[in-house]
């Protein structure tokens, strides 16, 4: 019975097609439909929405902001998450478990609740973050966090940090436990061991963590909506507004599809890069 494996896969395949492929295809189709204030959606095939999205500088700026935020969030997550994973990996029980729970704990709380927490910390000139920074003498005047890209980047980096920590942690687990000792015995100092031995081996973990964080940051909705507010729009909040406020579904669909295509392109490119760069060593 050669058909058996396919038949067994069928229920999952039907579900996948039903909840992913079909809605996706319908969204793509929708982006080619026409829309008017009084006539609503017209099922015709036109390029108007795409011309608008690709031609209008308002959309350029918005997409640039989306990917700029995603880039800095990824950078922050890597700069803090990778060392965090390394330190965590060297901790002994019970500390390791406690700190791992502290890092992964936020995943158990709704993104909206966490972001509202950040909004409280940022809130205005007397927000806790500004008070703390001024108290430490790091800044003279309060920094604007609410309704700024900086605020979105900080809050998103916190929200997405666990994904980076987990990815780096996984690659650290694959490290030979004696490898650092081997380098030390050959005369390498602690910094050299990190830079020459540990970092190159966890690089694939950092890069795959970066891909996840970048994709999630670029498509994040709740955090940019709450911290960014009404004016500072990113791709996902704009698509939301087109769908639910302006009711211009076709234009919203075009924005959403373009975001998806751009993300697929970036993730695919990054994967190719990792595979080509590290295939020989880590195949």
């Amino acid at each position, binding site marked *: 019975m050669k058909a058996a494996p396919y038949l067994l896969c069928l229920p999952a395949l039907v579900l996948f097609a039903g909840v992913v492929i079909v809605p996706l295809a319908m969204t793509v189709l929708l982006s080619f439909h026409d829309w008017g204030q009084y006539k609503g959606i017209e099922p015709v095939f036109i390029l108007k929405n795409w011309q608008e999205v690709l031609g209008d500088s308002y959309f350029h700026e918005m997409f640039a902001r989306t990917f700029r935020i995603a880039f800095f969030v990824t950078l922050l997550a890597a700069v803090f998450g990778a060392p965090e994973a390394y330190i965590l990996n060297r901790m002994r029980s019970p500390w390791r478990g406690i700190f791992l729970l502290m890092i992964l704990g936020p995943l158990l709380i709704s993104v909206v609740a966490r972001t509202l927490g950040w909004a409280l910390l940022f809130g205005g000139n007397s927000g806790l973050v500004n008070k703390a920074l001024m108290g430490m003498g790091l800044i003279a005047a309060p920094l604007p966090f609410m309704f700024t890209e900086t605020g979105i980047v900080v809050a998103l980096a916190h929200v997405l940090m666990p994904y980076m920590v987990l990815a780096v942690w996984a690659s650290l687990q694959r490290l030979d436990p004696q490898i650092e*000792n081997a380098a030390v015995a050959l005369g390498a100092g602690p910094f050299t061991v990190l830079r020459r031995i540990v970092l190159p081996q966890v690089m694939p973990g950092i890069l795959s963590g970066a891909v996840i964080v970048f994709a999630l940051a670029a498509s994040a909705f709740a955090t940019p909506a709450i911290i960014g507010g009404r004016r500072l729009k990113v791709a996902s909040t704009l698509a939301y507004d087109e769908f639910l406020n302006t009711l211009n579904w076709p234009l919203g669909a075009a924005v959403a599809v373009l975001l998806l295509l751009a993300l697929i392109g970036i993730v695919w490119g990054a994967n190719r890069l990792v595979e080509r760069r590290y295939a020989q060593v880590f195949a």
Partner: protein
Amino acid sequence: MAFLELEKLTKSFGTHNAVDGLTLSVEKGEFVALLGPSGCGKTTTLQMIAGFVEPTSGAIRLAGKDLLAIKPAKRGLGIVFQSYALFPHMTVAENVGFGLEMQGVAAAERTTRVGETLELVGLGAFTTRFPRQLSGGQQQRVALARALVIRPQILLLDEPLSNLDAKLREGMQIELRQIQRTVGTTTILVTHDQAEAMALSDRIVVMNQGKAEQIGPPHEAYERPATPFVANFLGKTNLVNGVTVRPERISFAASGLAGTVRTRIFQGNHWLYQVDTASGLVTVIRQNTGEAMPVEGDAVQLAWEGRA
């Protein structure tokens, strides 16, 4: 004065003494094996010499200097790990050259010395390969070359052959011994394999529960085991009326300890017998010389030198 001296070396984990007052002197150029079952403290001893574990008390001196006062990175010891711990992202040449690079040896000299050492271990043609592309035996040689290229004062081998299959292991034993003789590096081997320890080393230290049960040349420890533990650990042994007798020293004779053959197992170059006697079950090993041998159920007489 001995080259390497361990003096009353002790390492405690809580109330348990992993290494318990170990004293050992190793001469320059000597090959010493720390032999014992897992948990006997042999690996902890090696790690204290390497500097990865701090002793609770005791001293380690190398050429008269206090080794414990020197950081692990500055001790200049060559270590071959059980897992080899090769750097997977570096080529064979980069792996072997890493220690020289850390010492600040110029690139040209580095290349020469890396080439020489890889020739020594028979891997001259593999410089540009990555560890993943090598067999277990080849990785082991790279690990050895990486440890030897820095011209270490002492070579520490942590179960270096345990990941190889039986045939390869035998070949590597001979080769390891030859290489050690050639370069003359003082070597400490940690192993649980008594055959490996006896084949390679000038002296063995049989360890049990953190203490040295016997220190001496392999044949001496085998012939005159100091304790029942040593006798049992170094190959098969019989305890007949309170006297230990090696199975290969017992022969079938016209008169002696009477018994009946219970089992007979053919092992190629020798026969392994279990004989029921009045003094209990006795194991006998006889060379396979092609002659007819007693079969199961036969009545036999057992004799050995020194039997009253």
